[in-house]
Protein backbone atom coordinates (compact mmCIF):
# COMPACT_ATOMS: atom_id res chain seq x y z
CA UNK A 1 0.00 0.00 0.00
CA UNK A 2 1.31 3.48 -0.90
CA UNK A 3 1.94 5.68 2.09
CA UNK A 4 -0.26 8.75 1.97
CA UNK A 5 1.41 12.15 1.99
CA UNK A 6 -1.09 13.88 4.27
CA UNK A 7 0.41 17.34 3.79
CA UNK A 8 0.27 17.00 0.01
CA UNK A 9 -3.36 15.83 0.20
CA UNK A 10 -4.25 18.85 2.33
CA UNK A 11 -2.67 21.02 -0.34
CA UNK A 12 -4.80 19.40 -2.98
CA UNK A 13 -7.92 20.00 -0.88
CA UNK A 14 -6.96 23.69 -0.73
CA UNK A 15 -6.51 23.75 -4.47
CA UNK A 16 -9.94 22.16 -5.00
CA UNK A 17 -11.53 24.73 -2.66
CA UNK A 18 -9.94 27.54 -4.64
CA UNK A 19 -11.16 25.97 -7.88
CA UNK A 20 -14.72 25.65 -6.55
CA UNK A 21 -14.86 29.27 -5.40
CA UNK A 22 -13.46 30.56 -8.69
CA UNK A 23 -15.68 28.32 -10.83
CA UNK A 24 -18.87 29.20 -9.01
CA UNK A 25 -18.11 32.90 -8.98
CA UNK A 26 -17.53 32.79 -12.72
CA UNK A 27 -20.61 30.65 -13.38
CA UNK A 28 -22.76 32.97 -11.24
CA UNK A 29 -24.79 29.98 -10.08
CA UNK A 30 -24.17 26.64 -8.40
CA UNK A 31 -23.73 24.98 -5.04
CA UNK A 32 -21.10 26.41 -2.73
CA UNK A 33 -21.78 24.83 0.67
CA UNK A 34 -21.96 21.17 -0.30
CA UNK A 35 -19.00 21.43 -2.68
CA UNK A 36 -16.72 22.86 0.00
CA UNK A 37 -17.80 20.38 2.67
CA UNK A 38 -16.75 17.49 0.44
CA UNK A 39 -13.35 18.89 -0.59
CA UNK A 40 -11.20 16.82 1.76
CA UNK A 41 -12.96 13.54 1.01
CA UNK A 42 -12.73 14.18 -2.73
CA UNK A 43 -9.03 15.06 -2.46
CA UNK A 44 -8.30 11.84 -0.56
CA UNK A 45 -10.19 9.76 -3.12
CA UNK A 46 -8.72 11.23 -6.27
CA UNK A 47 -5.17 11.94 -5.06
CA UNK A 48 -4.64 8.97 -2.78
CA UNK A 49 -7.03 6.07 -2.76
CA UNK A 50 -8.55 5.56 -6.16
CA UNK A 51 -6.77 3.59 -8.85
CA UNK A 52 -7.52 5.53 -11.96
CA UNK A 53 -5.92 6.69 -15.17
CA UNK A 54 -6.94 10.08 -16.53
CA UNK A 55 -5.36 9.19 -19.86
CA UNK A 56 -7.46 6.05 -20.15
CA UNK A 57 -10.83 7.00 -18.70
CA UNK A 58 -12.42 3.65 -19.54
CA UNK A 59 -9.58 1.54 -18.10
CA UNK A 60 -11.45 -1.63 -17.05
CA UNK A 61 -9.52 -1.98 -13.79
CA UNK A 62 -10.17 1.53 -12.54
CA UNK A 63 -11.92 2.28 -9.27
CA UNK A 64 -15.25 4.06 -9.76
CA UNK A 65 -16.64 7.13 -8.05
CA UNK A 66 -20.32 8.09 -7.99
CA UNK A 67 -21.22 11.58 -6.82
CA UNK A 68 -24.73 10.83 -5.66
CA UNK A 69 -25.14 14.39 -4.34
CA UNK A 70 -24.69 15.58 -7.88
CA UNK A 71 -25.16 19.26 -7.10
CA UNK A 72 -21.62 19.20 -5.66
CA UNK A 73 -20.34 18.61 -9.21
CA UNK A 74 -17.86 21.54 -9.06
CA UNK A 75 -15.71 19.76 -6.48
CA UNK A 76 -15.54 16.64 -8.64
CA UNK A 77 -14.85 18.67 -11.78
CA UNK A 78 -11.99 20.43 -9.98
CA UNK A 79 -10.48 17.07 -8.97
CA UNK A 80 -10.86 15.67 -12.48
CA UNK A 81 -9.19 18.73 -13.99
CA UNK A 82 -6.31 18.65 -11.49
CA UNK A 83 -5.81 14.92 -12.16
CA UNK A 84 -5.54 15.66 -15.88
CA UNK A 85 -8.84 14.35 -17.25
CA UNK A 86 -9.23 17.65 -19.10
CA UNK A 87 -7.64 21.07 -19.17
CA UNK A 88 -8.17 23.21 -16.06
CA UNK A 89 -9.28 25.91 -18.52
CA UNK A 90 -12.54 24.01 -18.85
CA UNK A 91 -13.30 24.97 -15.25
CA UNK A 92 -14.08 28.48 -16.48
CA UNK A 93 -16.98 27.11 -18.55
CA UNK A 94 -18.96 25.52 -15.68
CA UNK A 95 -22.73 25.63 -16.35
CA UNK A 96 -22.30 27.63 -19.56
CA UNK A 97 -24.14 26.77 -22.73
CA UNK A 98 -22.17 24.11 -24.66
CA UNK A 99 -19.84 23.27 -21.75
CA UNK A 100 -18.48 19.82 -20.96
CA UNK A 101 -19.13 20.71 -17.30
CA UNK A 102 -22.91 20.55 -16.96
CA UNK A 103 -24.72 21.81 -13.86
CA UNK A 104 -24.95 18.22 -12.62
CA UNK A 105 -22.59 15.30 -13.45
CA UNK A 106 -23.13 13.96 -16.96
CA UNK A 107 -21.26 10.86 -18.14
CA UNK A 108 -21.90 11.77 -21.79
CA UNK A 109 -20.17 15.15 -21.53
CA UNK A 110 -17.34 14.85 -19.05
CA UNK A 111 -14.31 12.52 -19.07
CA UNK A 112 -14.09 10.72 -15.75
CA UNK A 113 -17.77 10.91 -14.84
CA UNK A 114 -19.22 7.40 -14.49
CA UNK A 115 -23.00 7.98 -14.31
CA UNK A 116 -25.54 10.81 -14.53
CA UNK A 117 -26.62 12.19 -11.18
CA UNK A 118 -28.36 15.31 -9.89
CA UNK A 119 -31.62 13.76 -8.84
CA UNK A 120 -30.87 12.90 -5.22
CA UNK A 121 -31.10 9.38 -3.88
CA UNK A 122 -30.24 7.52 -7.07
CA UNK A 123 -26.45 7.29 -6.84
CA UNK A 124 -26.06 4.40 -4.43
CA UNK A 125 -28.27 2.15 -6.55
CA UNK A 126 -26.06 2.85 -9.55
CA UNK A 127 -22.94 2.25 -7.46
CA UNK A 128 -24.42 -1.12 -6.47
CA UNK A 129 -24.97 -1.97 -10.11
CA UNK A 130 -21.41 -1.05 -11.01
CA UNK A 131 -20.16 -3.14 -8.07
CA UNK A 132 -22.21 -6.15 -9.19
CA UNK A 133 -20.85 -5.82 -12.75
CA UNK A 134 -17.27 -5.67 -11.40
CA UNK A 135 -17.89 -8.77 -9.35
CA UNK A 136 -19.28 -10.63 -12.39
CA UNK A 137 -16.15 -9.62 -14.31
CA UNK A 138 -13.94 -10.79 -11.42
CA UNK A 139 -12.40 -7.33 -11.07
CA UNK A 140 -10.84 -6.15 -7.84
CA UNK A 141 -11.79 -2.52 -8.55
CA UNK A 142 -13.66 -0.70 -5.84
CA UNK A 143 -16.67 1.59 -6.01
CA UNK A 144 -16.90 4.80 -4.00
CA UNK A 145 -20.03 6.89 -3.57
CA UNK A 146 -20.72 10.18 -1.84
CA UNK A 147 -24.15 11.14 -0.55
CA UNK A 148 -25.47 14.13 1.35
CA UNK A 149 -27.11 13.98 4.77
CA UNK A 150 -30.26 15.60 3.42
CA UNK A 151 -30.13 13.02 0.67
CA UNK A 152 -30.56 10.31 3.32
CA UNK A 153 -34.23 11.32 3.38
CA UNK A 154 -34.84 9.75 -0.03
CA UNK A 155 -36.45 6.33 0.27
CA UNK A 156 -34.34 4.93 -2.55
CA UNK A 157 -31.21 5.38 -0.44
CA UNK A 158 -32.57 2.77 1.95
CA UNK A 159 -33.63 0.43 -0.82
CA UNK A 160 -30.04 0.60 -2.07
CA UNK A 161 -28.74 0.20 1.48
CA UNK A 162 -30.65 -3.05 1.72
CA UNK A 163 -29.50 -4.44 -1.61
CA UNK A 164 -25.82 -3.62 -1.10
CA UNK A 165 -25.86 -5.56 2.15
CA UNK A 166 -28.00 -8.34 0.69
CA UNK A 167 -25.53 -8.86 -2.14
CA UNK A 168 -22.58 -8.50 0.27
CA UNK A 169 -21.03 -5.77 -1.84
CA UNK A 170 -17.76 -5.41 0.06
CA UNK A 171 -16.29 -3.66 -2.98
CA UNK A 172 -18.42 -0.62 -2.08
CA UNK A 173 -17.36 2.17 0.23
CA UNK A 174 -19.92 4.94 0.55
CA UNK A 175 -19.67 8.27 2.33
CA UNK A 176 -22.23 10.54 3.90
CA UNK A 177 -21.08 14.15 3.86
CA UNK A 178 -22.72 14.87 7.21
CA UNK A 179 -22.66 18.67 7.16
CA UNK A 180 -25.91 19.05 9.08
CA UNK A 181 -27.74 21.19 6.54
CA UNK A 182 -29.95 20.79 3.50
CA UNK A 183 -31.66 23.54 1.44
CA UNK A 184 -34.44 24.67 3.76
CA UNK A 185 -32.42 24.49 6.99
CA UNK A 186 -30.79 22.12 9.46
CA UNK A 187 -31.41 18.45 8.72
CA UNK A 188 -32.63 17.89 12.28
CA UNK A 189 -35.30 20.59 11.78
CA UNK A 190 -36.41 19.70 8.25
CA UNK A 191 -36.51 15.89 8.48
CA UNK A 192 -34.45 14.20 11.12
CA UNK A 193 -32.29 11.32 9.90
CA UNK A 194 -30.76 10.32 13.23
CA UNK A 195 -29.65 7.94 14.58
CA UNK A 196 -27.84 7.60 11.26
CA UNK A 197 -25.02 5.23 12.17
CA UNK A 198 -27.46 2.86 13.84
CA UNK A 199 -29.63 2.91 10.74
CA UNK A 200 -26.77 1.90 8.45
CA UNK A 201 -25.62 -0.73 10.94
CA UNK A 202 -29.14 -2.12 11.13
CA UNK A 203 -29.19 -2.29 7.35
CA UNK A 204 -26.12 -4.54 7.45
CA UNK A 205 -23.30 -2.13 6.73
CA UNK A 206 -19.92 -1.78 8.38
CA UNK A 207 -20.03 1.77 9.70
CA UNK A 208 -17.12 4.12 10.39
CA UNK A 209 -17.52 7.56 11.95
CA UNK A 210 -14.88 10.15 11.16
CA UNK A 211 -14.14 13.85 11.02
CA UNK A 212 -14.54 14.56 7.32
CA UNK A 213 -12.02 17.39 7.40
CA UNK A 214 -9.25 15.41 9.11
CA UNK A 215 -7.17 14.07 6.22
CA UNK A 216 -5.55 11.43 8.42
CA UNK A 217 -8.94 10.06 9.47
CA UNK A 218 -10.28 10.06 5.90
CA UNK A 219 -7.26 8.17 4.61
CA UNK A 220 -7.45 5.67 7.44
CA UNK A 221 -11.16 5.07 6.83
CA UNK A 222 -10.45 4.44 3.15
CA UNK A 223 -7.70 1.96 4.02
CA UNK A 224 -9.79 0.22 6.68
CA UNK A 225 -12.79 -0.11 4.38
CA UNK A 226 -10.69 -2.20 2.00
CA UNK A 227 -10.12 -4.80 4.70
CA UNK A 228 -13.82 -5.31 5.42
CA UNK A 229 -15.14 -8.48 3.82
CA UNK A 230 -18.70 -9.68 3.30
CA UNK A 231 -20.43 -6.34 3.76
CA UNK A 232 -20.32 -2.81 2.32
CA UNK A 233 -18.72 0.03 4.29
CA UNK A 234 -20.38 3.33 5.15
CA UNK A 235 -18.19 6.21 6.27
CA UNK A 236 -20.22 8.84 8.08
CA UNK A 237 -18.07 11.92 7.81
CA UNK A 238 -18.82 14.83 10.11
CA UNK A 239 -18.28 17.93 8.04
CA UNK A 240 -19.04 21.64 8.00
CA UNK A 241 -21.15 23.01 5.17
CA UNK A 242 -19.07 25.62 3.35
CA UNK A 243 -15.89 24.41 5.10
CA UNK A 244 -12.85 26.62 4.70
CA UNK A 245 -14.54 29.99 4.30
CA UNK A 246 -16.20 31.53 7.35
CA UNK A 247 -18.76 33.47 5.28
CA UNK A 248 -20.24 30.17 4.10
CA UNK A 249 -19.51 27.86 7.03
CA UNK A 250 -22.59 26.33 8.60
CA UNK A 251 -24.93 28.56 6.58
CA UNK A 252 -27.63 26.72 4.68
CA UNK A 253 -28.45 30.00 2.90
CA UNK A 254 -25.34 29.41 0.77
CA UNK A 255 -26.44 25.94 -0.30
CA UNK A 256 -27.14 27.01 -3.86
CA UNK A 257 -25.65 30.48 -3.92
CA UNK A 258 -22.28 31.21 -5.57
CA UNK A 259 -19.73 33.61 -4.09
CA UNK A 260 -20.19 37.20 -5.26
CA UNK A 261 -17.09 39.09 -6.39
CA UNK A 262 -16.72 40.60 -2.94
CA UNK A 263 -17.28 37.27 -1.18
CA UNK A 264 -14.74 35.64 -3.46
CA UNK A 265 -12.18 38.29 -2.60
CA UNK A 266 -12.74 37.84 1.12
CA UNK A 267 -12.69 34.03 0.74
CA UNK A 268 -9.32 34.07 -0.95
CA UNK A 269 -7.93 36.42 1.70
CA UNK A 270 -9.11 34.08 4.41
CA UNK A 271 -7.67 31.02 2.68
CA UNK A 272 -4.48 32.98 2.02
CA UNK A 273 -4.49 31.95 -1.63
CA UNK A 274 -3.92 34.17 -4.62
CA UNK A 275 -6.07 33.66 -7.69
CA UNK A 276 -3.27 34.88 -9.95
CA UNK A 277 -2.75 32.54 -12.84
CA UNK A 278 -5.95 30.59 -12.18
CA UNK A 279 -6.92 28.15 -13.56
CA UNK A 280 -3.60 27.07 -15.11
CA UNK A 281 -1.34 27.69 -12.11
CA UNK A 282 -1.37 25.05 -9.39
CA UNK A 283 -0.91 26.50 -5.89
Amino acid sequence: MVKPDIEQLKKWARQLRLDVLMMLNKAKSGHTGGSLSAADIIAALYFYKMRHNPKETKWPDRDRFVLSKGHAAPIQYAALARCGYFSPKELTTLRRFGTILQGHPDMKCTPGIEVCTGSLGQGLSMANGIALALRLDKKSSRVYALMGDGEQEEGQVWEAAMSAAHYKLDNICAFVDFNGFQIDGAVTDIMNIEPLSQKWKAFGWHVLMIDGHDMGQIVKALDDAETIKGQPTMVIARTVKGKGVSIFEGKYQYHGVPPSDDELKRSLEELGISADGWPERVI
Partner: protein
Amino acid sequence: MTKLIATRDVYGETLAEIGAVNKNIVVLDADLSSSTKTNIFAKKFPERFFNMGVSEADMMGTAAGLAAGGKIPFASTFAIFASGRAWEQIRQSIAYPKLNVKIVATHGGITVGEDGASHQAIEDIALMRAIPNMTVVVPCDGVETKSVIHEIIKYNGPVYVRVARGKFPVVMPEDYKFTLGKGSVVRDGKDAAIIANGLMVSHALEAAEMLAKEGLSIRVVNMSTIKPIDRDIIIKAAKETGAILTCEEHSIIGGLGEAVATVAAEEYPVQVKRLGIQDRFGQSGLAEELLVHYALMPKDIAEAVKEAVKKK
Protein backbone atom coordinates in the same frame (compact mmCIF):
# COMPACT_ATOMS: atom_id res chain seq x y z
CA MET B 1 -42.09 48.16 -20.74
CA THR B 2 -43.81 44.83 -20.15
CA LYS B 3 -43.92 43.76 -16.55
CA LEU B 4 -41.82 40.68 -15.72
CA ILE B 5 -43.05 38.37 -12.98
CA ALA B 6 -42.03 34.85 -11.91
CA THR B 7 -45.11 32.65 -11.75
CA ARG B 8 -43.63 30.77 -8.78
CA ASP B 9 -43.50 34.03 -6.81
CA VAL B 10 -47.17 34.65 -7.51
CA TYR B 11 -47.96 31.08 -6.49
CA GLY B 12 -46.28 31.50 -3.11
CA GLU B 13 -47.94 34.83 -2.39
CA THR B 14 -51.39 33.67 -3.51
CA LEU B 15 -51.16 30.49 -1.47
CA ALA B 16 -50.36 32.48 1.66
CA GLU B 17 -53.25 34.86 0.95
CA ILE B 18 -55.78 32.08 0.46
CA GLY B 19 -54.38 30.19 3.41
CA ALA B 20 -55.38 33.06 5.68
CA VAL B 21 -59.02 32.64 4.65
CA ASN B 22 -59.30 28.91 4.04
CA LYS B 23 -58.03 27.09 7.13
CA ASN B 24 -58.47 23.76 5.39
CA ILE B 25 -55.47 24.41 3.20
CA VAL B 26 -52.30 22.59 4.17
CA VAL B 27 -48.99 22.79 2.31
CA LEU B 28 -46.26 20.22 1.76
CA ASP B 29 -42.81 20.68 0.30
CA ALA B 30 -39.73 18.52 -0.24
CA ASP B 31 -36.84 20.73 0.92
CA LEU B 32 -37.33 23.29 -1.81
CA SER B 33 -39.69 25.73 -0.08
CA SER B 34 -37.36 28.67 -0.68
CA SER B 35 -37.44 27.94 -4.41
CA THR B 36 -41.09 26.91 -4.79
CA LYS B 37 -42.05 29.87 -2.58
CA THR B 38 -44.21 27.81 -0.24
CA ASN B 39 -41.93 29.29 2.43
CA ILE B 40 -44.23 32.36 2.47
CA PHE B 41 -47.12 30.15 3.60
CA ALA B 42 -44.79 28.27 5.96
CA LYS B 43 -43.82 31.46 7.75
CA LYS B 44 -47.42 32.58 8.22
CA PHE B 45 -48.95 29.20 9.04
CA PRO B 46 -46.22 26.93 10.39
CA GLU B 47 -48.74 24.52 11.90
CA ARG B 48 -50.28 23.87 8.48
CA PHE B 49 -46.96 23.48 6.67
CA PHE B 50 -45.16 20.15 6.41
CA ASN B 51 -41.63 20.02 5.08
CA MET B 52 -41.12 16.37 4.18
CA GLY B 53 -37.42 16.69 3.44
CA VAL B 54 -35.93 15.31 0.24
CA SER B 55 -38.67 12.67 -0.11
CA GLU B 56 -41.05 13.42 -2.94
CA ALA B 57 -42.74 10.02 -2.94
CA ASP B 58 -43.51 10.27 0.76
CA MET B 59 -44.76 13.82 0.24
CA MET B 60 -47.31 12.76 -2.39
CA GLY B 61 -48.51 9.85 -0.27
CA THR B 62 -48.87 12.10 2.75
CA ALA B 63 -50.75 14.64 0.66
CA ALA B 64 -53.14 11.88 -0.38
CA GLY B 65 -53.70 11.01 3.26
CA LEU B 66 -54.31 14.62 4.22
CA ALA B 67 -56.88 14.90 1.42
CA ALA B 68 -58.53 11.68 2.59
CA GLY B 69 -58.68 13.35 6.00
CA GLY B 70 -60.62 16.29 4.57
CA LYS B 71 -57.82 18.79 4.06
CA ILE B 72 -56.90 20.60 0.86
CA PRO B 73 -53.22 19.81 0.43
CA PHE B 74 -50.93 21.74 -1.89
CA ALA B 75 -47.77 19.74 -2.60
CA SER B 76 -44.83 21.49 -4.22
CA THR B 77 -41.38 20.70 -5.50
CA PHE B 78 -39.57 21.06 -8.84
CA ALA B 79 -41.61 19.74 -11.78
CA ILE B 80 -39.13 16.96 -12.56
CA PHE B 81 -39.27 15.53 -9.05
CA ALA B 82 -43.04 16.02 -8.64
CA SER B 83 -44.00 14.39 -11.91
CA GLY B 84 -41.07 12.03 -12.24
CA ARG B 85 -39.93 10.80 -8.86
CA ALA B 86 -43.43 10.51 -7.44
CA TRP B 87 -45.41 9.60 -10.56
CA GLU B 88 -46.76 6.30 -9.38
CA GLN B 89 -47.65 7.66 -5.95
CA ILE B 90 -49.61 10.38 -7.72
CA ARG B 91 -51.32 7.86 -9.97
CA GLN B 92 -52.16 5.29 -7.32
CA SER B 93 -52.70 7.25 -4.13
CA ILE B 94 -54.02 10.56 -5.50
CA ALA B 95 -55.53 10.26 -8.97
CA TYR B 96 -57.11 6.81 -8.82
CA PRO B 97 -59.23 7.72 -5.78
CA LYS B 98 -59.63 11.26 -7.22
CA LEU B 99 -58.40 12.87 -4.03
CA ASN B 100 -58.36 16.62 -3.69
CA VAL B 101 -54.60 17.19 -3.93
CA LYS B 102 -53.20 20.22 -5.72
CA ILE B 103 -49.72 19.61 -7.06
CA VAL B 104 -48.05 22.88 -7.93
CA ALA B 105 -44.74 22.10 -9.57
CA THR B 106 -42.22 24.86 -10.11
CA HIS B 107 -39.16 25.02 -12.38
CA GLY B 108 -40.91 23.47 -15.37
CA GLY B 109 -39.22 23.32 -18.75
CA ILE B 110 -35.79 24.33 -20.01
CA THR B 111 -35.91 27.88 -18.65
CA VAL B 112 -34.61 26.30 -15.42
CA GLY B 113 -31.32 27.08 -17.16
CA GLU B 114 -27.91 26.42 -15.60
CA ASP B 115 -28.83 23.37 -13.49
CA GLY B 116 -29.09 21.40 -16.73
CA ALA B 117 -30.98 18.36 -18.00
CA SER B 118 -31.38 16.62 -14.63
CA HIS B 119 -33.51 19.52 -13.39
CA GLN B 120 -35.39 20.44 -16.57
CA ALA B 121 -38.81 18.79 -16.76
CA ILE B 122 -39.74 18.46 -20.42
CA GLU B 123 -42.02 15.45 -19.98
CA ASP B 124 -44.09 16.40 -16.92
CA ILE B 125 -47.20 17.44 -18.85
CA ALA B 126 -47.19 14.19 -20.82
CA LEU B 127 -46.78 12.17 -17.62
CA MET B 128 -49.60 13.95 -15.80
CA ARG B 129 -51.94 14.14 -18.81
CA ALA B 130 -51.82 10.38 -19.21
CA ILE B 131 -53.28 9.77 -15.76
CA PRO B 132 -57.09 9.43 -15.63
CA ASN B 133 -58.85 11.92 -13.29
CA MET B 134 -55.94 14.35 -13.51
CA THR B 135 -56.40 17.99 -14.49
CA VAL B 136 -53.37 19.73 -15.95
CA VAL B 137 -52.80 23.49 -16.07
CA VAL B 138 -49.90 25.65 -17.30
CA PRO B 139 -50.55 29.35 -16.62
CA CYS B 140 -48.95 31.83 -19.03
CA ASP B 141 -48.03 34.61 -16.61
CA GLY B 142 -48.32 36.00 -13.11
CA VAL B 143 -51.84 37.35 -13.53
CA GLU B 144 -53.14 34.00 -14.72
CA THR B 145 -51.25 32.07 -12.04
CA LYS B 146 -53.04 33.99 -9.31
CA SER B 147 -56.41 33.25 -10.85
CA VAL B 148 -55.51 29.60 -11.44
CA ILE B 149 -54.66 29.05 -7.77
CA HIS B 150 -57.98 30.60 -6.73
CA GLU B 151 -59.98 28.56 -9.24
CA ILE B 152 -58.48 25.13 -8.64
CA ILE B 153 -59.50 25.33 -4.99
CA LYS B 154 -63.13 25.52 -6.11
CA TYR B 155 -62.69 22.24 -7.98
CA ASN B 156 -62.71 19.04 -5.95
CA GLY B 157 -60.10 16.70 -7.40
CA PRO B 158 -56.43 16.32 -8.29
CA VAL B 159 -54.79 19.09 -10.29
CA TYR B 160 -51.24 19.48 -11.60
CA VAL B 161 -50.14 23.08 -12.15
CA ARG B 162 -46.79 23.85 -13.75
CA VAL B 163 -45.15 27.18 -12.98
CA ALA B 164 -41.72 28.47 -13.89
CA ARG B 165 -38.46 29.59 -12.38
CA GLY B 166 -37.81 32.66 -14.51
CA LYS B 167 -39.44 36.05 -14.70
CA PHE B 168 -41.79 36.15 -17.67
CA PRO B 169 -43.71 39.00 -19.36
CA VAL B 170 -47.25 39.62 -18.14
CA VAL B 171 -49.64 39.24 -21.07
CA MET B 172 -53.08 38.91 -19.48
CA PRO B 173 -55.02 42.01 -18.36
CA GLU B 174 -55.18 42.69 -14.59
CA ASP B 175 -58.92 41.77 -14.46
CA TYR B 176 -58.51 38.45 -16.35
CA LYS B 177 -60.25 35.47 -14.80
CA PHE B 178 -59.13 31.92 -15.55
CA THR B 179 -61.79 29.28 -16.19
CA LEU B 180 -60.76 25.66 -15.72
CA GLY B 181 -61.00 23.82 -19.04
CA LYS B 182 -61.30 26.92 -21.18
CA GLY B 183 -58.72 28.43 -23.51
CA SER B 184 -58.80 32.10 -24.37
CA VAL B 185 -58.15 34.04 -27.55
CA VAL B 186 -55.57 36.67 -26.66
CA ARG B 187 -55.26 37.99 -30.21
CA ASP B 188 -57.62 37.39 -33.07
CA GLY B 189 -56.62 36.50 -36.60
CA LYS B 190 -57.72 34.61 -39.72
CA ASP B 191 -54.70 33.18 -41.53
CA ALA B 192 -53.49 30.76 -38.86
CA ALA B 193 -53.78 30.12 -35.14
CA ILE B 194 -50.99 29.68 -32.64
CA ILE B 195 -52.14 27.64 -29.66
CA ALA B 196 -49.65 28.00 -26.83
CA ASN B 197 -49.23 27.93 -23.08
CA GLY B 198 -46.79 29.13 -20.44
CA LEU B 199 -44.05 31.48 -21.59
CA MET B 200 -44.82 30.55 -25.18
CA VAL B 201 -47.98 32.67 -25.12
CA SER B 202 -45.95 35.86 -24.89
CA HIS B 203 -43.54 34.58 -27.55
CA ALA B 204 -46.52 33.73 -29.77
CA LEU B 205 -47.90 37.24 -29.37
CA GLU B 206 -44.55 38.66 -30.43
CA ALA B 207 -44.50 36.33 -33.42
CA ALA B 208 -48.01 37.39 -34.40
CA GLU B 209 -46.88 41.01 -34.24
CA MET B 210 -43.92 40.23 -36.51
CA LEU B 211 -46.16 38.42 -38.97
CA ALA B 212 -48.69 41.24 -38.99
CA LYS B 213 -45.97 43.38 -40.53
CA GLU B 214 -45.77 40.81 -43.32
CA GLY B 215 -49.49 41.00 -43.85
CA LEU B 216 -50.48 37.84 -41.99
CA SER B 217 -53.36 37.89 -39.53
CA ILE B 218 -52.57 35.41 -36.75
CA ARG B 219 -54.81 34.26 -33.93
CA VAL B 220 -53.14 33.48 -30.59
CA VAL B 221 -54.87 31.15 -28.16
CA ASN B 222 -53.73 30.76 -24.56
CA MET B 223 -54.47 27.11 -23.78
CA SER B 224 -53.68 27.12 -20.10
CA THR B 225 -55.72 24.03 -19.32
CA ILE B 226 -54.22 21.11 -21.21
CA LYS B 227 -56.56 18.63 -19.63
CA PRO B 228 -59.49 18.67 -20.03
CA ILE B 229 -58.68 20.39 -23.33
CA ASP B 230 -61.00 23.06 -24.73
CA ARG B 231 -62.15 21.23 -27.86
CA ASP B 232 -64.41 24.04 -29.08
CA ILE B 233 -61.68 26.65 -29.27
CA ILE B 234 -59.50 24.25 -31.28
CA ILE B 235 -62.30 23.32 -33.72
CA LYS B 236 -63.16 26.99 -34.15
CA ALA B 237 -59.51 27.87 -34.83
CA ALA B 238 -59.27 25.03 -37.35
CA LYS B 239 -62.43 26.09 -39.16
CA GLU B 240 -61.71 29.79 -39.20
CA THR B 241 -57.95 29.84 -39.86
CA GLY B 242 -57.19 26.51 -41.55
CA ALA B 243 -53.74 26.12 -39.98
CA ILE B 244 -52.64 25.56 -36.40
CA LEU B 245 -49.25 25.86 -34.77
CA THR B 246 -48.87 24.61 -31.23
CA CYS B 247 -46.08 25.93 -29.07
CA GLU B 248 -44.95 24.74 -25.65
CA GLU B 249 -41.87 24.62 -23.42
CA HIS B 250 -42.17 20.84 -23.29
CA SER B 251 -41.42 17.81 -25.41
CA ILE B 252 -43.49 17.62 -28.59
CA ILE B 253 -44.40 14.15 -27.34
CA GLY B 254 -47.44 13.96 -25.10
CA GLY B 255 -47.97 17.61 -24.37
CA LEU B 256 -50.15 20.44 -25.64
CA GLY B 257 -49.20 19.79 -29.27
CA GLU B 258 -50.45 16.23 -29.24
CA ALA B 259 -53.58 17.18 -27.34
CA VAL B 260 -54.46 19.85 -29.92
CA ALA B 261 -53.46 17.72 -32.92
CA THR B 262 -55.68 14.88 -31.72
CA VAL B 263 -58.73 17.12 -31.47
CA ALA B 264 -58.06 18.65 -34.88
CA ALA B 265 -57.52 15.24 -36.46
CA GLU B 266 -60.72 13.87 -34.98
CA GLU B 267 -62.97 16.86 -35.48
CA TYR B 268 -61.75 19.07 -38.29
CA PRO B 269 -58.46 18.01 -39.93
CA VAL B 270 -56.27 20.96 -40.92
CA GLN B 271 -52.54 21.56 -41.10
CA VAL B 272 -51.12 21.25 -37.54
CA LYS B 273 -47.46 21.88 -36.72
CA ARG B 274 -45.95 21.32 -33.28
CA LEU B 275 -43.20 23.50 -31.82
CA GLY B 276 -41.58 22.33 -28.62
CA ILE B 277 -38.54 20.36 -27.53
CA GLN B 278 -37.94 17.94 -30.39
CA ASP B 279 -37.57 14.71 -28.39
CA ARG B 280 -34.25 15.73 -26.86
CA PHE B 281 -32.98 16.37 -23.35
CA GLY B 282 -32.15 19.83 -22.04
CA GLN B 283 -28.72 21.07 -20.98
CA SER B 284 -26.99 23.79 -18.99
CA GLY B 285 -27.09 27.37 -20.20
CA LEU B 286 -28.92 30.61 -19.61
CA ALA B 287 -32.67 30.38 -20.15
CA GLU B 288 -32.47 32.73 -23.14
CA GLU B 289 -29.64 30.74 -24.74
CA LEU B 290 -31.62 27.54 -24.38
CA LEU B 291 -34.78 29.08 -25.82
CA VAL B 292 -32.74 30.07 -28.87
CA HIS B 293 -31.04 26.67 -29.10
CA TYR B 294 -34.29 24.73 -28.84
CA ALA B 295 -35.94 27.10 -31.34
CA LEU B 296 -38.64 28.49 -29.06
CA MET B 297 -38.14 32.18 -29.76
CA PRO B 298 -40.72 34.44 -31.44
CA LYS B 299 -38.75 34.32 -34.68
CA ASP B 300 -38.85 30.50 -34.67
CA ILE B 301 -42.58 30.59 -34.08
CA ALA B 302 -43.06 33.09 -36.91
CA GLU B 303 -41.08 30.86 -39.31
CA ALA B 304 -43.12 27.81 -38.35
CA VAL B 305 -46.40 29.67 -38.77
CA LYS B 306 -45.39 30.72 -42.26
CA GLU B 307 -44.62 27.11 -43.15
CA ALA B 308 -47.96 25.98 -41.80
CA VAL B 309 -49.76 28.68 -43.75
CA LYS B 310 -47.92 27.68 -46.94
CA LYS B 311 -49.12 24.10 -46.55
CA LYS B 312 -52.78 25.11 -46.17
